């Protein structure tokens, strides 16, 4: 079994080493990292779509 949780004695200081953690924090950190990455490199998917649209136009216009 897991160790029993530490005792929260009344009138003692709380567990000063306790900090919040967990999947949700990791997910938020990862989302923030992904947003930072997108901001750094710009909106590549949108720019690529624009580029492809221009390519398609040129192709329709008969350019080689």
């Amino acid at each position, binding site marked *: 079994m897991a160790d029993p949780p530490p*005792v929260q004695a009344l009138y003692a200081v709380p567990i000063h080493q306790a900090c919040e953690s967990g*999947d*949700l924090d990791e997910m938020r950190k990862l989302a923030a990292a992904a947003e930072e990455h997108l901001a750094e490199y710009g909106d590549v998917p949108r720019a690529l779509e624009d580029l492809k649209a221009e390519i398609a136009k040129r192709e329709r216009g008969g350019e080689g």
Partner: protein
Amino acid sequence: MSSAELAATPRRRSERDLRDFVPVHVVWELTLACNLKCSHCGSRAGKRRPDELTTGEALEVVEALARLGTRELTIIGGEAYLRRDWTDIVAAAVGHGMYVGMQTGARALTQRRLQAGIDAGLGGLGVSLDGLAASHDRVRGVSGSFDFGLLTLQRAKAAGLNTSANTQIGPHTIAELPELLEHLIAVGIGQWQLQLTVAMGNAVDHPELLLQPYELLELMPLLAKLYHRARRDRVVVMPGNNIGYFGPYEHLWRSDRGERGHYSGCSAGQTIIGLEADGTVKGCPSLPTVGYAGGNIRDTTLEAIWLAAAEGGALRPADDLWGFCASCYYADVCRGGCTWTSHSLLGRPGNNPYCHHRALTLAAEGRRERVVKVQDAGPAAFAIGRFEVVEEALDGSPLPPRQQPPAPVPAPRPIVPIALDFCHGCERFVRHGETICPFCSGDLAALRAEHEARLRHIQQVMDEVRALLPRATADA
């Protein structure tokens, strides 16, 4: 999933600590001298005890604690810093590798005094704040004490100490808790410990400061909300051992790194020692002296008192359960909750109306409980009075008393606490071996499988995002 990371705390208890009765955490009233006049003070602090330990005796206590394997020391009072040699005691404990924190009202904890503590090796500071400025100052009996408490937390944080706050909850505190939390977040505390005001000492003289058990129905959902609010700013809300028990939020209070930790009964005298300033040894700092003192270090050594008590269980609470607690679903895990709370209220432990599961169970039957003072407390430190529990309708109208069913005799309290399973449907703890949740009627195995599938999906999504990012960004 949310949980507190507790791996590195000296207070973490292993199974070996439990079996060997290591006093992992010691809470030491260095002096009963106090410069606040708190109307809920259980120890009726103010003047120092006439026979407090000398410096030599106190330093010998530190040596004994080191030999017993103590890893964390909390110094309290009165006000610990009003003892002239408090920094010598801190330095001696730190010299033995103990983590030392001080819990204080902070009224006269000046920058100079704080620095002296830091120089001695003080690791953390907890300040008691019992509401917003007006109500805190009123209950603490000193104008300006709230502001000085916040200032002290700021100073301690700036000096690099771990900082926290403790808050006692009474009926007038509930509405102030959200705004109080914002103040605590603003000064950058790491942890917030909450506890219910207990019917001891001065609080018996002021029963209006005691929460009514049925008010837990309002308080507990609020605490859950505050838990999530605090989490956004990385403040850990840590209910003390008299807040519980079980009910729909228990998994928030005592979880650890994804492990579904839960309350496991009073730990007095098992891995914790409470010391009074005159050398009296108890199994918990809050317990009454009468009936719970295991001896005095002036009569024999601390080690002799502790080891005799560990073997004979003299510092452990009794196993008797009565009233609602005797036939409760969680009886042999919870054992009536906080011994101090129930003994102080009703004159003996084992029946504790301050319980969320109990309040919810009664509410489902259209009932609630109210406590009424029937006897004052004496003038001594840690004196108790007597209260009665009145059962009434949810709207407060009287109901005829009812007979409690005959209670099964609980098995002796195990050294290693019983671990419960968890229902992923209603998020309540259930007894090991249950197949259908007794609270939501969910199929426990199916709910667990759904939960695990959800976790796997989350993991897949996270892995996919990580794979798309450059390594340095993904690891950030």
